[in-house]
């Protein structure tokens, strides 16, 4: 169904704010973090006004209420990605922490010197550095699926790498720079055939696509609330039950234990085994409200809308002399347009656009190796979500012409 943009934009109070230019905000930075609908803001506000208490183990009314809200949100999130059960959803701080959880718990228990982990050249730093750290500590080996000139993964090279029997293949479902939507199902199937397990960085995919972890057959799947209309400070790790059960705990502390003696402990069952200490309770409630919001609108409709906007944006940007776009064609990517403008540094592009109230990001977007691959230090990146319109694309294009004039 086609989105009603007028109604959707009303759900996001921030889109009404004035900018320093005196204009309305043109927010084209949802890949970094999305804006939040009123229903999410209200759910968190209601929680603090009405239900706030620490979760689990409390017997008073508020403790029970907050525990129920916290666990209800987990159920919603599980359903949203079609996990078998809510106990396979571990709350974390964000995608980065979810990946680190796998690196610290599963990988440190299972990988030894010489074991191979396959990553890709288009990874965010969050799916590179944890493995660099493990390499330094354990002497594991890292190989990378190359990125082709048109921004796709070289699956031929991937198959060759699989001959070396990797233990883990960890890759992004959707690139935060190129926008490339990788064939996750195929990558996972091939990894399994080679005897490897898989970890998917879903930070960009879960907010924008219908993700089904069971049909993908993903072993681990990591994502963040704040890129999908939810609050910052909370994310999730999905894992296959048998894997999660076999893993040692990650952080130690309260709530992750079944029993503690002075000199020992027994870990709790899933998912609590991986959730030490008081978690982000209000944020979990907000996360659940975000999932409700996206489900109500429908992920297929959101994806279709973003596709239409991206298609239009790429077409308009391509017309501008001096603009070079990165990544595949619109049919193979999500709502991201990373570009350079000849003779002008991306920081300057972003700064001048900001003067007109247009928010884009400039830099290497935490994917420095990818930028090195393309021989550029940085790009400007406009990204689109369910609330963005064609008019906003036009404002962006006009803004870029203004930049060209200043530097002309």
């Amino acid at each position, binding site marked *: 169904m086609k989105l009603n943009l007028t109604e959707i934009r009303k759900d996001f109070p921030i889109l009404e704010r004035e900018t320093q230019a005196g204009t309305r905000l043109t927010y084209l930075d949802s890949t970094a973090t999305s804006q939040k609908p009123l229903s999410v803001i209200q759910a968190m506000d209601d929680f603090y006004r009405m239900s706030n208490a620490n979760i689990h183990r409390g017997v008073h009314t508020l403790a029970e209420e907050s525990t129920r809200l916290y666990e209800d949100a987990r159920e919603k999130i599980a359903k949203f990605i079609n996990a078998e059960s809510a106990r396979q959803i571990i709350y974390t701080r964000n995608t980065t922490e979810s990946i680190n959880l796998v690196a610290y718990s599963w990988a440190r228990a299972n990988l030894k010197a010489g074991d191979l982990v396959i990553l890709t050249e288009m990874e965010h730093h969050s799916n590179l550095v944890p493995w660099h750290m493990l390499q330094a500590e354990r002497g594991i080996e890292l190989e990378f699926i190359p990125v082709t000139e048109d921004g796709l993964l070289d699956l031929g090279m991937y198959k060759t790498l699989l001959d070396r029997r990797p233990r883990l293949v960890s890759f992004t479902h959707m690139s935060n720079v190129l926008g490339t939507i990788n064939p996750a199902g195929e990558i996972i199937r091939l990894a399994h055939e080679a005897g490897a397990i898989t970890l998917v960085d879903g930070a960009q995919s879960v907010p924008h696509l219908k993700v089904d972890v069971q049909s993908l057959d993903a072993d681990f799947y990591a994502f963040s609330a704040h890129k999908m209309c939810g609050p910052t400070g909370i994310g999730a790790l999905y894992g296959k039950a048998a894997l999660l059960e076999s893993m040692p705990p990650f952080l130690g502390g309260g709530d992750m234990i079944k029993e503690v003696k002075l000199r020992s402990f027994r870990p709790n069952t899933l998912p609590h085994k991986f959730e030490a200490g008081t978690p982000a309770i209000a944020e979990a409630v907000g996360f659940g409200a975000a999932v409700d919001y996206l489900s109500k609108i429908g992920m297929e409709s959101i994806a279709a809308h973003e596709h239409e906007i991206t298609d239009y944006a790429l077409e308009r940007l391509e017309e501008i002399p001096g603009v070079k776009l990165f990544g595949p064609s619109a049919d193979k990517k999500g709502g991201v347009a990373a570009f350079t403008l000849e003779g*002008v*540094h*991306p*920081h*300057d592009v972003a*700064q*001048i656009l900001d*003067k007109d109230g247009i928010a884009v990001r*400039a*830099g*290497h977007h935490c994917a*420095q190796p990818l*930028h090195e691959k393309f021989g550029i*230090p*940085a790009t400007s990146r406009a990204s689109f979500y369910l609330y963005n319109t064609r008019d906003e694309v036009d404002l962006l294009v006009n803004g870029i012409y*203004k930049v060209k004039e*200043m*530097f002309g």
Partner: protein
Amino acid sequence: MDDLYREVIIEHYKNPAYRGKLDPHDISFADNNPLCGDHIQIDLRVSANGIVTDARFDGHGCAISQASADLLMESITGRPIEEVKKLNKESILELLGIDLGPVRLKCALLSLKVLKAGVYGLGEASDDLVE
């Protein structure tokens, strides 16, 4: 349209007078701005009595970082190295003639950090060099 992109800054960005490398040199140092990947190398020639006789910068970055590097090279040429050591954030803002927010300040100060790390013979261009 706007103070940040005063003509002088665009001019120094587009036509830097001090871009290049010095070979031989007495001091050479390079570092990055980790936020945006901007890279600056600075080469100096210093006379026996401690005067900067020649200064060049090279690298890539935004208009603010490149213009401030060019202005900085211009301002230290002919000055005693002891004076160069005393330069700080305010010196750069004075050269640029603008006020900057925290993010763009990093761009503006990269060249001074690299310069001072080179002059002091340090391994890294850190923030406290320019405070």
